[in-house]
């Protein structure tokens, strides 16, 4: 049969984000896929070199639209490591709660994208609504719905407002109460199973070789999570489980995401129970106009909703980073893993696979 070259995105209904894949197809089978990023390059890493240590945290969150919080966190962690700043206990707990909220919100967004892609509009709508009521909580805590700009070097910018915990618990219960409905309509839906099972399979060996992280790796049965391996914030204070599946396909990945969300909600409850009632939420950092950090370099990592997120940052002793470089999960998933997973699949499953890998294109182009 004749080979055809097919451009999938950036202008394509099935494409989420500014991303393109060049497909070599034979009939509707994909022979070879070429991921093609570069439509969203905003030069964040370079921009960071021109902003002071304090001015950078409102910037880095924009690297990932879906989940800006872990970007703020990783930047703050890097600066703290470079400058030797210790975050107060309460600040650590707030960070953890904040990040778990972000994980749930991000997974719900992912669920929307995925369900929407497969045509499960009812579930997609629920996911968006539940994300929205969680964004209300973010708005109350941080003052913004999407770019929270909340985690600052040294801690967090504001303490919980009065009665916030009660409202958060109520909101989480509200979302949690709908899990049976999600299950009935989507996760235990035979149609979903038929569309996702055996699609975009990545074996454990392949996943490890290609640097897959997060739920892509967990869906192959690997218990790999930075929150356990290298605990940060208050993750060493609470007990939690890492959900895994063994299929390595889109179906397993989606179920891992669901279980991860449920585990996050449980973890928030545990963190709320354990967190100190009073105390500082941040450590005073030097005057932002005079803040210079001694020359050195730091690499920090955290577990974002898509997997291990790293930041390598260098200071030359000045008031700005000399160089910053992110190691983002979408980079691995969107370029290497995706190309591999697409091979031999049907054209109609391209969006299915891409979203099941949870690729967020702005993370690739930084």
């Amino acid at each position, binding site marked *: 049969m004749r080979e055809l070259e097919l451009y999938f995105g950036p202008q394509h209904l099935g494409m989420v984000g500014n991303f393109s894949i060049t497909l070599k197809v034979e009939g509707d089978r994909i022979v070879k896929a070429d991921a093609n990023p570069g439509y969203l390059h905003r030069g964040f890493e370079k921009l960071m070199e021109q902003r002071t240590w*304090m001015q950078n945290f409102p910037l880095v969150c924009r690297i990932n639209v879906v989940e800006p919080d872990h970007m703020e966190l990783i930047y703050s962690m890097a600066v703290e490591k470079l400058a030797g700043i210790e975050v107060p206990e309460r600040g650590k707990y707030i960070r953890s709660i904040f990040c778990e909220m972000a994980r749930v919100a991000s997974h719900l967004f992912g669920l929307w994208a995925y369900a929407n892609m497969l045509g499960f509009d009812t579930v997609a709508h629920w996911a968006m*609504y539940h994300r929205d009521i969680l964004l209300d909580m973010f708005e*109350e805590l941080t003052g913004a719905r999407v770019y929270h700009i909340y985690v600052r070097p040294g801690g967090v910018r504001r303490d919980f407002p009065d009665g916030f915990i009660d409202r958060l618990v109520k909101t989480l219960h509200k979302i949690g109460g709908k899990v049976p*409905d999600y299950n*009935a309509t989507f996760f235990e839906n*035979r149609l979903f*199973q038929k569309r996702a099972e055996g699609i975009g399979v990545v074996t454990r060996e392949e996943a490890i070789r290609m640097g897959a992280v997060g739920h892509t790796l967990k869906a192959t049965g690997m218990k790999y999570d930075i929150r356990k391996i290298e605990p940060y914030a208050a993750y060493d204070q609470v007990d939690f489980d890492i959900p895994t599946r063994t299929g390595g396909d889109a179906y397993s990945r989606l179920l891992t995401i669901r279980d991860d969300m449920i585990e996050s909600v449980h973890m928030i409850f545990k963190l709320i129970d354990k967190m100190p009632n009073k105390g500082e939420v941040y450590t005073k950092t030097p*005057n932002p106009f005079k803040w210079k950090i001694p020359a050195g370099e730091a690499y920090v990592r955290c577990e974002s909703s898509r997997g291990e997120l790293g930041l390598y940052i260098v200071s030359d002793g000045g008031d700005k980073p000399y160089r910053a470089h992110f190691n983002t999960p979408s980079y691995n998933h969107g370029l290497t893993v995706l190309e591999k997973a697409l091979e031999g699949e049907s054209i109609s499953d391209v969006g299915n696979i891409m979203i099941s890998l949870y690729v967020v294109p702005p993370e690739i182009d930084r």
Partner: protein
Amino acid sequence: MSKTSFLNPFKAIKYLFEKPQTLQYPFEVKEIADRYRGFHKNDWDKCTGCGNCADICPNKAIEMVKIAELTAKPEEGMKDERPQLDYGRCCFCGLCVDICPPGSLTLTKDFFHIHFDTNTFTFIPKDEKMDKETYKSEKDYSIFQASITHRKENYDGFSPDMQYALFEPDRVEMPEIEPDVRKLSFIEQVIGYNKEEARQEAGRCLECKLCEEACPANLKISDYIDAIYRDEPKESLEKIYEDNPIPSICGRICMAHCEDACSLHIRGDSLAIRWLKRYAADQIKNFKEELELKPGTATGKKVGIIGAGPSGLSLAYFLRLQGHEVVVYDELPGGGGVIRTGPPIYRLPLEAIDKDVNYIGSLGVDFKFNTRVGKDIEFEQLLKDYDAVFMGIGNTVSFSTRVANSEKCVLALDFLKDNKIGEMRKVDKQVVVIGGGNVAMDVARETIRLQHLQYPDDKSLKTMVVSLEDWGKLPATDVEIKEAKEEGIEFNPAWGPKEVVLDDKGNIKGLLCKKVKSVFDENGRFAPSFYEEQEKLLESSMIIEAIGQKPDFSFLPENFSDKLKFTERKKVKVDENGMTSIPKVFAGGDIVNINLDAVTAIADAKVAAEGIAKFLLNNKNK
């Protein structure tokens, strides 16, 4: 693998009978969170125009613009600029709110703006008081018109909170000798910052430079503070020397107009600018060896300066750097002028003065001490010998109250002078000081020290201050008053002297006082009025008058003193070049300005230095 089914999804049908999850926007409006980061609002009354918001803005969305209807008040730290927002750039991070020292910037819960003209996205925020047009009451507000200029009133979101401010409001406490210890001797009260303390304090500076505009001599404050922060005291001192050649003196007794203007002052403590200057000056042990200043190339012009006070010293320094030959005459045995005789040793030791004076001398300034113009050398001779003459003679004669028997009282400046550079005065056990200014505080605090030195362990010691002004209106600085109180000085505010009461032998028995009704008349002129019937007698055997001082022009021959013109406030009239009404004679310092302090004298000297340079150049051309 969990069980899946085709029929299960139909359970979702129940949602058909539930309340919709969406809102009928804009008829149903969602409650906006209290911390919402929306459009800016700025309280113009609180805003100082410091520009910290513009400096921290990561996107350069804030620009400081001059506002025509505002007038700058540099001495209060108030600029005529206000922030202008560009919402094409703003990312609503709220850093501007957290850095705002006066807390005038707030983010509101409004976030709608739709317009065909992109220029409308740039605007200068005001608040409800200033801009009634923009901020509508609940009744007048309509969401269909919502824009930057159609907003709800009292709709604050992300607000300033000192707890989360990005600046440090608290000053590093200056180590000082405790009142109970320091009142027993003349030990220098302020110990001075060590390196860590100085760097920590310097680190608080936000570099907004309001202080530089408030300083009469316009020192480059934020530069030299930054040098201290970077641990470069020498660089810091060099920066200071560009505008102020007497850092050891000013680092101790400057009136620190800069600190009143400091933007941190509004919601916290102002930066300790004076103590940091002192730190820089104290760090460099030997100015001559370490500073690399050189006199300018010789011009062949000679300038004579009368008085080695702050204005004379500074002028000598500035002229010397220009290359002129400078001779300074002073009747005292050393430099400093009123600064040498006035400020007590516990505030300004002689070594600090000599350190500055000697350095100026080392640049080639010829000091002729113990030489009184008018006695040892005639004024006319100076006019003949020099190309220009400068008078910086200061206020050296104390006023007397001129109440009955006041000739028995001691005058403040004589008292201070003897204690500082002569023999310590003998004081009595009960002393009354008349006056409420800084000189009166100096006198009272010296008296209490002398009492403790001369009558150790005497419980009957008492120093009283009588002033016309009431609490809160005393001319002395708050710090001086606080420290005087700590040392046990009794205040009698709003009492005026009526008579010095004598006993049979003609010795002072006490001061009879009368209650003050008001100090100033309707026109704001000094005209005290009293309740004559309300009297009280302050028993003491010694009274010191510290109610003000005036210059001594007796050195001027008559033909010159007639020509010397004065302003309405009885100050020597000078033009924009610092020249008096007598050609070739310049003046500065306390006889010219109304601030009566060292740093203003330096400012006068800067003016005169430029004026003299111009004058000499013009003369050369002729």
